[in-house]
């Protein structure tokens, strides 16, 4: 499947190429082995894959995490909630609550955070930084 697509795009690229370099008397029917290596790169760059990283803005990530914390029933003092807030010191969450928050973040961004990294997330800022570093976060 992929090979036929590759060959087809290579063929198209060859057909398109002589139009812009008309004066050069290059033989159109080059061997496929040669042509397969060069033109597809230019061709495939134009295509944006569905799996490509859409890119999350820092503000958006921060806003979503803040909303999530606002709805978290154990966060009573929402005035202290800001981008720098520490889960334990500022929001009064214990380590078990932190686990719950991290689980909620995992769900919100549809990723899975390994235990070791999850253990290192203690504040809103750390969570935001971690999410921004993940290419597959949504």
């Amino acid at each position: 499947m992929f090979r036929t697509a590759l060959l087809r795009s290579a063929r198209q690229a060859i057909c398109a190429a002589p139009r812009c370099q008309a004066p050069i008397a290059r033989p159109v029917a080059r061997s496929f082995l040669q042509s397969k290596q060069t033109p597809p790169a230019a061709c495939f760059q134009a295509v944006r894959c569905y799996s490509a990283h859409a890119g999350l803005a820092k503000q958006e990530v921060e806003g979503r995490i803040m909303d999530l914390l606002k709805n978290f029933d154990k966060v009573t003092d929402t005035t202290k909630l800001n981008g720098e807030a520490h889960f334990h010191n500022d929001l009064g969450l214990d380590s078990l609550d932190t686990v719950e928050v991290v689980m909620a973040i995992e769900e919100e961004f549809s990723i899975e955070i390994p235990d070791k990294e999850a253990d290192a997330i203690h504040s809103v800022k750390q969570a935001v930084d971690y999410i921004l570093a993940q290419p597959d976060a949504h």
Partner: protein
Amino acid sequence: MSPPTPALRHQVIKIYKELLYLGRDYPQGYEFFKTRLHKAFASQKDLADEAKIRAGIKRAEFVKKEIEALYYLKRYRTLRQRYDKA
């Protein structure tokens, strides 16, 4: 929970997470389950003895199996009821 033994701490957090995932479909609701679970874990936070922590983890594993069994039983009863009615 257990600062001197990080490996045990990870185990505790792991079982806590697993229990939380299981609690999503708890008959009395997730909120009910979550508060109870949190209380149960928080009441054991002063455990410092490694053997006691291990015993606590064993207990958590046991509870996990109990919850699984509860779900199976619930499913069984529902199906049974439906088949009996028809």
